[in-house]
């Protein structure tokens, strides 16, 4: 209830005239969309470059998701199934990195990207987040539990390592791909601290920074803020709804409680 009520309040509030949002708060009427209007949504577009922020967020998050799925799944597969020198130490290092929050390495990383001249770019918001220890861990636990005979059979049938990965492993690992996609999307969609540190202009800034500055943009209009919020969470809900069946199965079979 604590989670869902504010969302309902936000959605209905976004459809009401601005002055009614606060006036009806605390009453049952706050949850009754009596006079529906999309004016607040239009307002958001008029007052800020919402489309730009949305595109930035979609591009950054989408790219991290897509590249992250490729890189992390391949890395995890090589940990789970291929044998190479130093594999166990590297795996341990990856698992250890899971406990490090981005904030703890933000400052040294900031100096590094400043030196490389990456500030105020998409690159700086994408590259550091493609490889992800938790994603590798999720893929690894899934791959390690897949029957080895599937790969043995396909090797005998004549498939090489890449074909085995693409045609046998990936199609049978949809749940974990969905889980990693959703978790990565959620994390990156809400990224705030890092973009705040490395971006300054509107051109490359994502939605979380935009909504933060929208709060302080006079005049204060709660209906507009609600509309901004609704538009910001819509893609997350959409992604979650599309993948939720696989997501639940993936998290369960990876042995990680959500």
């Amino acid at each position, binding site marked *: 209830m604590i989670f869902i009520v504010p969302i309902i309040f936000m959605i209905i509030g976004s459809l009401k005239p601005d002055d009614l949002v606060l006036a009806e708060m605390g009453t049952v009427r706050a949850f009754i969309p009596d006079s529906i209007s999309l004016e607040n949504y239009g307002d958001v577009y008029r007052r800020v470059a919402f489309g730009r922020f949305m595109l930035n967020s979609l591009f950054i998050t989408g790219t991290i998701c897509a590249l992250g799925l490729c890189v992390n799944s391949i890395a995890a597969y090589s940990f789970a199934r291929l044998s190479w020198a130093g594999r166990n130490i590297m795996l341990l290092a990856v698992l250890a990195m899971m406990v490090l929050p981005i904030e703890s390495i933000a400052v040294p990383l900031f100096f590094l990207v400043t030196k490389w001249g990456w500030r105020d770019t998409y690159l700086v918001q994408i590259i550091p987040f493609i490889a992800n220890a938790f994603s590798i861990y999720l893929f690894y636990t899934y791959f390690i539990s897949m*029957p080895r005979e599937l790969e*043995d*059979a396909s*090797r*005998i*049938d004549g498939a090489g390592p890449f074909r085995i990965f693409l045609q046998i492993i990936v*199609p*049978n690992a949809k749940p974990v791909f969905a889980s990693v996609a959703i978790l990565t999307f959620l994390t990156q969609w809400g990224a705030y601290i890092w973009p705040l540190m490395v971006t300054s202009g509107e051109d490359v800034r994502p939605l979380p920074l935009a909504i933060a500055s929208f709060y302080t943009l006079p005049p204060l209009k709660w209906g507009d803020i609600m509309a901004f919020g609704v538009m910001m969470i819509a893609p997350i809900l959409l992604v979650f709804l599309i993948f939720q069946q696989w997501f639940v199965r993936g998290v369960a079979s990876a042995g990680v409680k959500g």
Partner: protein
Amino acid sequence: MADIQFNNVNKIFEDGTHAVRDLSLVVSEGELLVIVGPSGCGKSTVLRMVAGLEDITGGTIVIGGKTVNNLQPQQRNVAMVFQNYALYPHMTVRKNIAFPLKMMRLSKKEQNLRVEETADLLGLTSLLSRMPKSLSGGQKQRVAMGRALVRDPKVLLLDEPLSNLDAKLRLQIRNEIAALQRRLGRTTLYVTHDQVEAMTLGDRVVVLADGFLQQVDPPKELYESPANIFVAGFIGNPGMNIFPTVLHMNDRGRLEMKFGADDIELYDKAVDRFSGLANYEDAQIIAGIRPESFVSSSQNTSGNKVSVLVTGVETLGHENIVYFRLSDSEEQITGKPFNEEMTTGKLYTMRLESTQHVEAGSKMDIDFDTEALYFFSRDGKAIAKAK
């Protein structure tokens, strides 16, 4: 088709486990050779080495005159059926069977033709559009066979293919595999831990234990002339009763064998079956007798009556498996110098017809024909039979 030669093949895993030791063996072209042994004896490792899924630590494997040690699995032209079938879950039966052909880059037309031929051979035509998860165990097993056979491999490897099936289906598929192999005449290595499968399917059977080849012979030979006490105990269901004993000459100048507290006189025929059995007079040896060679003394003809204590009875319908001891004492048999306790405390088994009523806890008199006895030296090797 091709023959397979194992020349002093060894496999040592990274953790130091010596899984296969000095295996030398020739599998003839078109032969169905069954490898049987208890869990962990190295039988699946042998198969995986032939397939190229495990490196060979020492020795060579030659398939059709070509040493394959350094060839990748796909270069060996072998096919394998796995215990859990390893069907690709996301592909239809048709795509599963066609997968090896796709890897061979055959044309779509050729792929379809061969898939349909194979499906026809195995009765899978109506299942071609189904997904593996909707198939029964027996159907999955047939699809796995189809995927193995479709590419016309030189060698077919079957790794416990019936283990996941229920008893009735196992019997049916076992017969199907036997018929298919006879029809196709393909060189086949078949691994199982089930000696009934081994005996019924194999042209010859290899018995492995602890990585060592114990014996390789046709099934009948294996049953009738086990090379050592391991094979004697492993082949047969239940396995042979094995116990230490001593032979000595009685007053009438005939050999007698200690069996519990009793002295059993051996008939001339029993002695003559083995070359030089008389040389073991007063020596400690190991004797064996199959459960089916005991009879209840009401059917007695030989006069070697022994009183036993029945400790348990398993009713199988057509027969009973009866467990008994020669006395009430607890068991301990091999490895130590002979004493009477070793034979009296041991648990023996015998098969009796179900018409003979026996109860656990009762005493009964049994008998056996001494011609049914086997003898092994103290190191476990069979004493050679007379020619």
